[in-house]
């Protein structure tokens, strides 16, 4: 589904916000090619703002965000997909007035090769059978799980190299969350997709991630191997609440 696994995301001294006090302060982190980095933390820690800053959706932003060795800051939001970056925002961003098929088509319209775009849509329908059955249904008729599948599928038809994924488990049943996490693991292992995952469901996120990053009040307080983080009782009690 995805391109080459040469991608590396490097963030340095990132301070970002929306015009008032900064939400993120001097954030440094790296996401290595073909890995999943899970960013966890309490509500208001700045997780969503981190992804929005990478995408260019956070209006006040200083510091450096490099992707595949090139600065991302200053890139127009609409050009991000052309740099191989796909962002599935909080709330999934399914355009509910459009059908499933139209949402998926939208994911590859920017590409020069329409035939490959159609192939990518067919691959998504193979990957997510419920979407294939509901291809003509409007987005507002889908369940939460189906919408999440559609949002991820739509990102994948652009054949990204970096996937920014914001709270994919939000509002989903544990079984569906597990399926989503298994899918992320599959994408990483089989296609080399690099994933920056923001998640409140810490256990699920750390179960698939290679790296765990804890944000607290807009600052990185822990950046460690995900397995180590999940196993360290002191860290978990201090920052993750379990």
């Amino acid at each position, binding site marked *: 589904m995805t391109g080459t696994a040469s991608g590396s995301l490097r963030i340095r001294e990132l301070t970002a916000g929306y015009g008032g006090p900064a939400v993120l302060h001097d954030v440094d982190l790296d996401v290595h090619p073909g890995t999943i980095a899970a960013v966890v933390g309490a509500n208001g820690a700045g997780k969503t703002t981190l992804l929005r800053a990478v*995408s260019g*959706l956070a209006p006040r932003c200083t510091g450096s965000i490099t992707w595949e060795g090139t600065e991302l800051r200053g890139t127009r*939001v*609409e*050009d*991000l*997909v*052309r740099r191989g970056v*796909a*962002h599935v*925002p909080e709330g999934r*961003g399914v*355009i*509910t*007035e*459009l059908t499933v098929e*139209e949402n998926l*088509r*939208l*994911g590859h*319209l*920017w590409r020069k090769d329409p035939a490959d775009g159609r192939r990518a849509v067919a691959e998504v329908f193979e990957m997510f059978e419920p979407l294939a059955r509901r291809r003509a249904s409007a*987005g*507002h*008729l*889908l*369940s*939460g799980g189906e*919408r999440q599948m559609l949002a991820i599928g*739509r990102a994948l038809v*652009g054949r990204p190299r970096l996937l920014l994924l914001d709270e994919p488990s939000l*509002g989903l049943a544990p079984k569906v969350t597990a399926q989503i996490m298994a899918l992320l693991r599959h994408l990483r292992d089989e296609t080399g997709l690099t994933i920056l995952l923001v998640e409140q469901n810490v256990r699920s996120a750390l179960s698939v991630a290679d790296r765990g990053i804890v944000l607290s009040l807009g600052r990185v307080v822990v950046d460690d191997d995900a397995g180590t983080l999940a196993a360290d009782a002191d860290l978990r009690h201090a920052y993750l609440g379990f």
Partner: protein
Amino acid sequence: MDRFIFLTVDGLSRGAVFAAFALALVLIWRGARLVNFSQGAMAAATTYIAYSVTTASGSYWLGLASAVAAGLVIGALTERLVMRRVDPSRPLNAVIAALGIVLVIQAVLGILYGSAYRAMDVPFSRRPLSIGGQAVLSPYDLFVFVTVAIVMIALGLMFTRTGVGLKMRAAAFNPDMARLLGVDVGRMLTLSWALAGAVGGLAALLVVPTELGAHPHATDLVFVYAFTAAVVGGLDSPVGAVGGGLCVGLVLSYVSGYSGSDLSAVVILAVLTVVLLVRPAGLLSRPAARQV
């Protein structure tokens, strides 16, 4: 019964024009969440351009083509030069800017052409044809129906079958997400304004020659009726604009045919009020999205 049939056909003919004009309003509402109060004045300007070209060339069709082209340009320029620079967080600013455009356009037209009505020709006879001894519709009415139908079908196909149409819909419904998917939302908005300008210009050219002719205020009432049509149908709904336009045309025709034209504006106001009270989002608005 004969009169009823005549009034029905006449109402549908006028309604088709209101539908096209209402569609122009819907195009901009969906893209910018703004009622384009300058739509009427923009259409008045394109009508004068058609008048000038037709007068100079002697060709109605050249005038029509120039009106459509001018509508595209005026619409695009209005968006790029004025509306894009208005702070979107204060919707009233856009309304004031649109009203300012109305004043500027009408003043310029007044300076260039004066305030006298300028009669305009139509390409086909307006004398009703008889079917079985019953006066039904004129060749010009038929021309209006066919023209509006072609525009509606072309726009419908563009929105549902082409990539540009899909991008325009995405940009209108969810601009942030559309941008994340590579859609140049600003360009789509310019295109919406350009199309609205062209459709509005065409609609005005279909109706203005059937009244007193070109005048800086010739489209003021058309705008009011079209706005009513758009609100009745639902500002978010192109199909609603068409249905609303036809309804308004029929109501106007019946009221002026049976009670006199003095009551028309009052009845339209009553229709607008009832719809706003009973179904504020319009008769054909989409139900709210399921929350999950």
